[in-house]
């Protein structure tokens, strides 16, 4: 389904209206300017797939089906899956080089580590969590395997080990949480990237770099940092010389994805007022219409017997 701009506005308009009713602001709040992030410069990526290799190695993922040097994988678009937390896809833009060959653009796909992650909001047990350093992590010991996170993720990132009968896990980029929690630690992909198409740093600093880079080359770069505002902001940011839609980075609302559901949840279940009120009304109705039920007299069926 292609979501047209119009329908998107409609959805968001409606959501906005509802959010006006619920006063409480949604989503987790433990994000700050010092969160780590990563800036992916699509213009720099050379499609070497080393990030995929490093990711696989650092996260001890199962062996890949084909070698990481096999560039024919670009012939079809891939998505991260249970065996690969990140993949690089190739898109041909409308730009052509001197010989008229279309110029490829390579884009690395992985978890965006949203500031207000829909997956974490959706997660029934809190197995998914936005950590204070920016990573959205997954704790398999809490997971029940409902896969609601996969429904929720606007970037379609969490993957599932459908083939595991008893202990399947949700698999997704960890932002190398353990590594980056250490002083000076790096995520595997950014560390291995030969051209620094991935820049690792604090999100606020990365935003500065991103804006500087795109404003220094206004004719080359799309004047937008993808992830700055999308779904309320993401820890991973993209800048590109090719329109983002052509790279599979579709337009997304600026409201955080869990906004609507969390607003509903919190406005209805604040102090359980809604259920209690409903209970009260129904109790009143029962008292009015069917008082003998309430007075603990034998139920109707037994009454009938007596009759």
């Amino acid at each position: 389904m292609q979501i047209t701009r119009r329908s998107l506005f409609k959805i968001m308009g409606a959501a906005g209206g509802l959010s006006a009713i619920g006063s409480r602001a949604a989503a987790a709040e433990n994000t700050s300017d010092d969160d780590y992030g990563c800036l992916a410069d699509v213009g720099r990526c050379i499609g070497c797939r080393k990030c995929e290799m490093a990711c696989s190695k650092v996260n001890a993922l199962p062996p890949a089906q084909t070698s990481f040097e096999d560039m024919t994988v670009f012939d079809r678009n891939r998505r991260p899956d249970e065996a690969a937390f990140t993949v690089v896809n190739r898109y041909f833009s409308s730009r052509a080089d001197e010989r008229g060959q279309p110029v490829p653009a390579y884009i690395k796909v992985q978890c965006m580590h949203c500031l207000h992650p829909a997956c974490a909001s959706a997660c029934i047990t809190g197995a998914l969590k936005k950590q204070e350093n920016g990573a959205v992590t997954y704790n398999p010991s809490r997971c029940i395997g409902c896969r609601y996170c996969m429904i929720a993720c606007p970037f379609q990132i969490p993957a599932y080990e459908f083939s595991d009968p008893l202990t399947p896990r949700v698999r997704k980029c960890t932002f190398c949480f353990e590594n980056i929690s250490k002083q000076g630690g790096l995520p595997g992909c950014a560390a291995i990237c030969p051209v620094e198409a991935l820049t690792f740093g604090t999100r606020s600093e990365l935003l500065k770099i991103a804006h500087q880079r795109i404003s220094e080359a206004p004719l080359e770069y799309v004047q937008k940092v993808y992830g700055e505002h999308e779904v309320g902001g993401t820890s991973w940011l993209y800048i590109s010389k090719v329109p983002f839609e052509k790279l599979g980075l579709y337009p997304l609302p600026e409201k955080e994805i869990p906004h609507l559901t969390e607003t509903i949840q919190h406005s209805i279940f604040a102090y359980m007022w809604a259920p209690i009120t409903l209970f009260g009304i129904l109790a009143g109705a029962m008292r009015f219409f069917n008082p003998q039920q309430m007075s603990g007299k034998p139920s109707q069926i037994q009454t009938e017997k007596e009759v």
Partner: protein
Amino acid sequence: MKKTFILLMLSAFILLAALASAPDPAKVAEAPPPPPKKVFEDGSPWKAVDQEAAMERARQVPEFVKTVLKESPAERKMRLGEKMPTLADVPYRYMIIDSPILKSPPFDFLSQESAGSSFPGLKIGDIYGPVRFMHLKHAAVVKDCTKCHHYKPDQPDASETTECSACHQKPFDPEFPERPGLKAAYHQQCMGCHQKENKGPTDCTGCHAKNPPDHSVLVKLPDHPDPLMVTKECLRCHDHTANDMLTSAHWLWRGPSPYTVGAEKRVDMGKATNTINNFCVALTSNWPRCTSCHAGYGWKDANFDFSDKTRMDCLICHDTTLTYAKVPTEAGMPYPQLDLKKIAQSVGKPSRKTCGDCHFQGGGGDAVKHGDMNGILYYPSRNCDVHMGGMDFQCHECHKTRNHKISGRSLSLPVAEGSRSCQDCHTDSPHKFHTGEGHEDHNLLNHHLNRHTEHLHCQTCHSPVYAKCKPSKSWWDWSKAGDKKRKVQKDKYGMPDYSWQKGEFQWKESAKPEYLWYNGKVSRHLIGDKINPEETVRLTFPNGGIADPESRIYPFKSMRGKQMADAGNHILIVPHLYGPEGYWKTLDWDSAFEKGMKAAGLDYSGKYEWVETVMYWGLTHETIPAKNALGCVQCHSALKGEKTCNRCHQDNRNVNFKKLAEKGTDFEFMASQGRDVSHLVGQSDYLNFEALGYKGDPIIYGGRFKKLPLGNETAGMEN
């Protein structure tokens, strides 16, 4: 207890069996040859001097530069004016691009081997080796040092061309967020420029050699595996690679012959089918001896199955222990004493040793066949081969290989899987600049030298003698074979002049090549081709001529000899030499010829004769250091004695012309080192212009397509 007893009994039995079989010396294979000693000819420990110096430089990390002078190229030009750095400021021609920075935190976790990961043995931070970087070449092509050295440290006395690693060290430094780390700086700079200029590699292996993963954790073999088990274990992961190998020249000993005249489209030619030489003559009927150099096991007769991947010998090329060796007479089987498990667990990239074991030793011994390749090249001095000795080049670094198809070609065999030339790296105008003191004037020469590249192959000047460090066979007379009583004499190089099995030999050391015009095409005599017994049969001959613009003057070793021919059918004979019924056992030529010809499917008339044959071998290795290349006067005798440039140039330059033109290959020095070149000292017209078709020295008589504007009066100059 029981186990120990059984073991004891077993070992006793084995001991007994060993003792029983020990007295039969014929059954005990000789010990495999030891690995070549890593020493120079004089016995001192070997090292590749240029390479080690470059490595040492690469290991140094300069002090980190915090602030740089950021100026636009135009601003910089304004500031520097005349003081713009030039090629003269290039301190190192050759550099290794590598850095301890890339092996230290935060990168180090990439270089650690993590147990239980999906690629045991692979250190992802270590997939590639360092880059050999022709610094001067790049400087000369780019012409502007400041293109790469884009900023300078913000100190008045700092160098305008401060090294990259001074400013670019660790990535993602919070203090310098927009400054790339060293690795990215290199890659952005190199690949960016290569892409922009559409020149130079942009893929990983275009610059980096790839490090093989540690196979000691990957290879799973029982103790004392047989060779076929090893191959099976290799195939477990590398089956697709074996498919590439199935169609390769090293497996089939035949293949496409794009450079053989009249056979450009054929794919069946090669040693396995139809080529003949004047060394051991031909493969057919002599398989077990010849195929000890086959990258396979058990090619002992015409029925070898070339589709059986398990018969491939992976270790012959991929051994890194330098111990792997094949029994010379066992159809490619290795010495049984070898620890194949250990060898298989340490496989890696081929080396001069693995290639050299066959290619240096062709024709029955070291240095016999190729005039420019021999065992010295295992560990050569810089003077013997500047690439291998100075910079430790391995064969595959020039002979780029894809899918087990190895580029490079020779005259001796038709098969070619790609072509390599010096220009691939050194470009069509290779003479750029000479660094160091005393070379200032030399730079005036470059223009003249570069014009030579249209007419001369590089090695013509850069390898003025062949078999430079070890004598090579130049004459082989089969007709003299069979005299077991003849006393073998040593020639002046200490080489034998006779073998009762093979006949009479001559050897040459540090010999002057034959110079011929060569356009890359080869005429080739094949098994069964008719001969004229009155003439010397040219088994291989370079095509070309002075009038052919594609042709260049090329140095050759010519191998001459006498070999057997069918006097009735007028074809060369394929003799059956090796085996219980072969000549080397029977000393009966008639029977050997009959059996050989039958095996080759040819008619043998019963009468034989001895005909003279010649084979030309191109000379491409043993490049000497540039300053030892032939000098102007060594060929152009017309320049001898000139003191200035004003034969051609009107102005009177302040140049020591004599020093420039007369400097060249120092034969005197070579002779003092024990090389047999004293007769070459002071020689002029080194190439012999008349033999090449010129009237004489082209400086006087003009070039092949163009009269030089200034010769002497007799040449009819115009101005």
